């Protein structure tokens, strides 16, 4: 890895820091225009997130001959990925939130949009609404589809209601009235009442967070956003002030579910954008590395952390996005109303706890020991046997060199913890430990199958790319189970998402609704509006320019549909305006073509309705380049040492242990063996072998 002196950074625009805080570990990756420089890992400190971040930064700074403070002072872009918002929802730790709706419509969140995945299944209860009925309240007032006020807002009733909410200890309020997108007056008025009657209580108005037609989606967006505000606003503000105090001068950009990053003020205002943002960075790395290493355009990206296992896909060279983002299962979970990277997430990772259930069956996860107390072997008071403890007992981890030697693992504690499970099972400690890994692998295989085989994708046709601190422990048996012949583990595999952060851009969208039709097109109105969008786009670009970002791409689109349709297609506006009939004709033709190519039919003489006009600005951040090394013909160096290990196929064996730093492109290691990287350990099971690729990553033939 190249290291340059910190002084040269400023002239090149400074460092780029990518952070990924998971439930257990905080990953840090530092890069600049010459490449990725350094990686660090620290335990996540939930009570004050910046502590773990600064510790990880310190780790990453050391090889660069500097410290966290100096690094931060020379950082241009700081990208923050976090599972905090998602986990808060999954763990039911969001604010106690009330929902105010139009009188007569209390069940919007209960009924969602209907639908059920398996109509033959009568074994599951109907899911609870995001906000319970007991905290959903009706307010008199009605706007029509045309935006007219049919029934005036009952302000005194609303005021009395807000007093009741105070007494019910409500911590956040969401407001969604019918047709607030056509006329927001009632929502705005209630917003003012909330500020007056419940000062300090955060609230979200549906027309502001997600101005779309369809009351369920808008109400759900508002409810999720409001419920996250107390927690996420405090979290983000505290982190920002801590990092600024530690010296950060550059841009602080949280990753958002759309797959890019956003300015921190925007996210503080709309924390819903951070929901499901966690898995959005990993496929970006899959896309970049997959293409560079093998030219693969279809990649399965697995990220095994301490708490969770996330799988996402790259298909045809792009991360797979879902237009509808469900928290939980489709139909029965909650729609965020926004699109996001399509990823499956299960509670399985290095910290997953093993236990024996009442029927005598070995279970692993979804409960995790997290970072605190963590697995028994961390020696922080944890007593539960975890996947990490099992791996240590099996000799798959180097107790002296965990996390680059910054943590010593307590072998005795791991043995004791696994021993307790073994006693319950009546098996040997080794067989129990191996069993814990098998069960954990099984869950992960099922998650991969769900996003591939269940969607009709044969995993064997894709490149399998694995990362996350615990990935190397069992990726070989997982790949074997999927009948994949090889797995790519990036050198920085331990910090997959933080690495992905090195390759993201700033993406912001400006949108204005204005309905017009092809037969009586409103040229003046549309061009006025497009000029307005151009001004917003220009101002945004200017604000980025002052922050040192110089390369932009602005694309204009219109969302259009045939008359009577209710779902739109996005059509590009290459000129950014529609000057006359000629340009209109070309947009109309582009719509017919898009409809034909996506839906197999078009209707040449049908009127087209134009609904929403959008300008999307991409501020291109400087990316660390990927340059191949020339492969050496040198044989692998002698191992760093030997250790005892246990595999089910071989029983106890003595295996070599290699330090990753000593391995260069072209070298090959035969299993059984361990390759120890500072942030991850790759277990080469008997029969597998690893080769260091030209880009200095590991390709494991399983």
């Amino acid at each position, binding site marked *: 890895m190249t290291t340059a002196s910190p002084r040269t950074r400023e002239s090149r625009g400074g460092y780029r820091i990518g952070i990924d805080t998971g439930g257990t570990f905080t990953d840090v990756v530092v890069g600049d225009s010459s490449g990725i420089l350094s990686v660090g890992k620290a335990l996540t400190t939930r009570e004050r997130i910046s502590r773990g971040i600064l510790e990880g930064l310190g780790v990453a700074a050391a090889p660069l001959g500097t410290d966290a403070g100096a690094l931060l002072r020379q950082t241009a872009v700081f990208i923050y990925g976090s599972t905090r918002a998602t986990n808060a929802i999954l763990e039911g730790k969001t604010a106690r939130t009330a929902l105010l709706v139009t009188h007569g419509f209390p069940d919007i969140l209960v009924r969602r949009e*209907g639908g059920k995945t398996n109509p033959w299944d009568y074994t599951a209860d109907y899911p609870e609404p995001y906000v319970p009925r007991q905290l959903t309240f009706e307010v008199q007032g009605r706007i029509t589809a045309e935006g007219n006020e049919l029934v005036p807002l009952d302000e005194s009733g609303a005021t009395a209601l807000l007093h009741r909410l105070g007494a019910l200890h409500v911590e956040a309020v969401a407001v969604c009235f019918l047709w607030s997108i056509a006329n927001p007056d009632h929502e705005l008025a209630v917003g003012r009442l909330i500020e007056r009657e419940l000062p300090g209580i955060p609230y979200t108005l549906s027309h502001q967070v997600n101005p779309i037609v369809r009351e369920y989606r808008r109400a759900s967006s508002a409810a999720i956003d409001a419920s996250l505000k107390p927690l996420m606003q405090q979290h983000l503000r505290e982190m920002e002030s801590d990092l600024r105090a530690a010296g950060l001068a550059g841009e602080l950009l949280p990753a958002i579910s759309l797959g890019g990053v956003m300015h921190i003020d925007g996210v503080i205002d709309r924390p819903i954008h951070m929901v499901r943002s966690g898995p959005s960075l990993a496929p970006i790395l899959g896309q970049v590395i997959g293409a560079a290493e093998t030219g693969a355009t279809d990649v399965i990206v697995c990220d095994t952390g301490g708490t969770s296992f996330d799988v996402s896909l790259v298909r045809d060279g792009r991360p797979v996005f879902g237009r509808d983002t469900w928290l939980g299962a489709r139909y029965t979970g909650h729609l965020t109303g926004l699109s996001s990277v399509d990823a499956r997430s299960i509670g399985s990772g290095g910290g997953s706890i093993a236990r024996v259930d009442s029927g005598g069956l070995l279970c692993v996860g979804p409960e995790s020991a997290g970072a605190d107390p963590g697995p028994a072997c961390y020696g922080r008071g944890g007593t539960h046997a975890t996947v990490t403890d099992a791996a240590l007992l099996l000799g798959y981890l180097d107790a002296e060199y965990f996390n680059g030697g910054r943590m010593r693992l307590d072998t005795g504690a791991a043995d004791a913890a696994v021993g307790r499970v073994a006693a319950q099972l009546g098996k040997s400690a080794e067989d129990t430990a191996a069993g814990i890994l098998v069960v954990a692998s099984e869950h992960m295989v099922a998650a991969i199958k769900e996003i591939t085989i269940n969607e009709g994708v044969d995993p064997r046709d894709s490149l399998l790319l694995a990362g996350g601190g615990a990935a190397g422990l069992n990726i070989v048996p997982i790949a074997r189970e999927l009948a994949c012949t090889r797995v790519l583990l990036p050198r920085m595999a331990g910090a997959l998402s933080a690495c992905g952060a090195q390759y993201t851009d700033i993406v912001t969208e400006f949108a204005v609704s204005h309905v017009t039709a092809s037969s009586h097109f409103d040229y003046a109105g549309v061009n006025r509006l497009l000029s307005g969008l151009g001004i917003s786009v220009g101002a945004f670009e200017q604000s980025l320019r002052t922050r040192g970002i110089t390369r932009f791409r602005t694309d204009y689109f219109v969302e259009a549909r045939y*008359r009577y349709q209710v779902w739109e297609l996005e059509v590009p506006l290459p000129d950014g305006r529609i000057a006359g009939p000629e340009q209109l004709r070309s947009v109309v033709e582009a719509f017919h073509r898009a409809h034909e190519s996506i839906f197999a039919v078009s209707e040449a003489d049908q009127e087209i309705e134009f609904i929403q006009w959008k300008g999307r600005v991409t501020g291109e951040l400087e990316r660390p380049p990927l340059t191949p090394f020339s492969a050496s013909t040198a044989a692998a160096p002698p191992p760093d040492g030997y250790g005892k290990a246990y595999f089910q196929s071989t029983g106890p064996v003595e295996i070599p242990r290699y330090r990753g730093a000593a391995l260069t492109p072209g070298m090959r290691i035969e299993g059984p063996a361990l390759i120890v990287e500072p942030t991850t350990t790759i277990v080469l099971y008997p029969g597998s072998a690893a080769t260091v690729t030209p880009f200095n990553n590991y390709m494991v033939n399983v």
Partner: protein
Amino acid sequence: MSTQRKPLDQVVIAVLANRLDSIVREMTNTLFRTGRSAILNTAKDFSCSIITADNQLLSSADGLPIHVLGGGRQTQSMQEFHPDLAAGDAFLHNDPYLGNTHTADHTILVPVFVGGLRLFTVAAKAHQADCGNSDPSTYMPFAKDVYQEGGLNFPCVRIQRDYQDVQDIIRMCRRRIRVPEVWYGDYLAALGAARIGERRLKALVDRYGADTIGEFVHEWLDYSERRMKHAIRALPAGRLIAEGRHDTLPGLPDGIPVKVIIEVKPAEGIVEVDLRENIDCVPVGVNLSQTCATAGALIGVLNCIDPGVPRNEGSFRRIRILLRENCVVGIPRFPACTSMATSNVTNRLINATQRAFSMLGDGHGLAEGAASMGAGFGVVSGNDRRHGGAPFVNQLVIGNNGGPGSPVCDGWVTYCMPDAAASVMVDSVEIIEQKYPLLIRSLRLVEDSGGAGRQRGGPAGEITYGPLHDPMTVAYFAEMHEDPPKGTHGGGPGSASAVYKVHRDGREEPIPPIGLVELQPGEFIRGFEAGGGGYGDPLTRDPERVRHDVMEGWVSLAQAKDVYGILLSGARADASLRVDAAATAAQRRLLAQA
């Protein structure tokens, strides 16, 4: 051909089975995103499927049970009438006497050719906004025969050749369907779905080869049959008889009895459903088509079988359904009207079948599900002055029928009704108000409407709506007004349906449960659909669940006490409700003795 072929890899079988499902889901997405009427682009009252060259249903992911289970009979008529089948063909089929469900469901069939061989047929069946019936409604409950019904009939006619529309057929539809532009757009949506299915299947065969695909089809259907056989073997043996009754109709003062006789034969791995002991066809629009009679019985059985067993023609081999000619629940005799074949009597049939299964013992079968197509499922029509007085017709799918209690869970809320079983989506209030000139005044779920039980029935919904500017007609069909869904194993019935007209002065007048009403601006229709039946004795319901039901407004304090025997202290308003364990035990003893 080599004779020594290795059996197909299990992973390939799993991948292909899921790939077919994902092709069907992509077809479904195409129709949903491109449809023009709300019943398609919002309520999703349509289904897509893949059928084998020899007319066996292969995949119907996300489809409505009633739509997809009879697909094979329709492709049979395509084969029979069109020996010159070729790539580029598409057929319009809505003939209930030739395998379709009812006239309002237009089915587009596209034969899929690869290398000159016909390997599959893809089908997209969609409930139309209008089908040219004599009333502006896709349901004609009172029509005495098909002539009075009046809908345009297409007995599997070619609507595309060489990928081009056959204009004669298009013109027929455009002339006689009340909303020609919407119809044509919906036709394109269904055609697009079928063409997407065709493209994807061709790519799949190119990738795996016709031999592998052929072998897969064979293996998959056999595998599905084995799974079903295994599931039936786990059931107790028994002869089960259940009866239901459709509400009264003009000329049918006793309503329409529905009788189901089931033989469960675990030793043979067979379930037999005999529907022959039912009355002859009736001179109203509720006779079942043969497809609906078959599908209705199948749905009832499948609802009681391990949901993991694949639902296709392979597993259906283990279910025998016995029908007779000229029977209201069987094979209709022309010209009997089957306009409402997908819903009314079919829903009674499904309910009787799944309730019969509960007679195998607690742990089997289901209670009855609600099936009212009242105001919340009315067909609205009129003219829209916002669009130059353009005509509109569309069935609303916004009401709420409660699902049946099962041995292990409460009734589904957005159940729709037995024939669609929650596969249909729910209309958005805003989309409906945007597309049609009406105002919805309220839409809420009703307290105490789900049948009481250890597992409670799902709740009914209330809805009130009316025209904004000009008169509007609503055709509605609130079955289950007289005979609400039954519970089982001690579970209570769900609430009954009802319909009211709300006059300008606010007065509410009960109107016949099945009918057609014209509303002036300022007038509203108000309707209640039905609640689902409960499963098991309400006195055995977990007290904490009853407390939660009261907190959430599903069950009143009075019902909690009088029916569930649960006494609660504290108040709902400040979330302080708690179960009073001692008082509850006493109350439950008291109720048990009564």
